[in-house]
């Protein structure tokens, strides 16, 4: 099955970013496809390459980047939400791309299920 995932909160502050990742990981391991992960609202903060969590903690940004690299998952940051919050090409982590909100609607159309994670 083809999943779309919407992430509405930033890393560390809300568990939404963690749950979305664990869900996506489980879906891939079960052989499903992730059509796209779309980052909206504070969710765009998942995409900053400047993040340096404590060494004994998970690295939420790098986890997404690795998932993009290993599974070709399309990680899309909303351009408008990103501009409001200072997520732009300059600080974008590998594997993420910036695009418009149309990409979210398009995922809703293309994916068999679109699951939202937020606050």
């Amino acid at each position, binding site marked *: *099955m083809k*999943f779309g995932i919407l992430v*509405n909160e930033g890393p560390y502050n809300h*568990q*939404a970013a963690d*749950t979305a990742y*664990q*869900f996506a*990981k*489980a*879906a891939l*391991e*079960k052989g*499903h496809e992730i059509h796209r992960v779309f980052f909206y609202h504070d969710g765009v903060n998942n995409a900053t390459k400047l993040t340096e969590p404590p060494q004994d903690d998970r690295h939420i940004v790098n986890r997404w980047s690795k998932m993009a690299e290993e599974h070709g998952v399309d990680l899309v940051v909303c351009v408008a939400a990103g501009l409001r919050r200072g997520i732009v090409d300059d600080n974008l982590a590998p594997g993420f791309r910036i695009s418009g909100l149309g990409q979210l609607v398009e995922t809703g159309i293309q994916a068999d*299920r*679109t*699951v*939202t*994670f*937020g*606050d």
Partner: protein
Amino acid sequence: MLHIVNKSPSERNTLDSCLRMAKKGSTILLIEDGVYGATKGGVAENKLKAAMADVKVYALWPDLEARGMQDSVIDGIEQVDYNGFVDLVVADKNVQSWL
């Protein structure tokens, strides 16, 4: 329809709203702070038990375990992990997160 609730019933109105607008026969999955709703002695115990006549309730055990609530789950609530979460999304024809 699969309804996902991620907020504590003692902090927000989310579970109440979900129960009010969930169609008979639907499924509710409690995740994150929402798992407190699945616990004995919690504020939602009675209303959830009552709702279980009409809806099937699941709770994500990684979240129960993180919060030390794994031994307090209301009878009849089934526990799933992230794989089970994926299966629940597949099983129903649509899904709504009550943010």
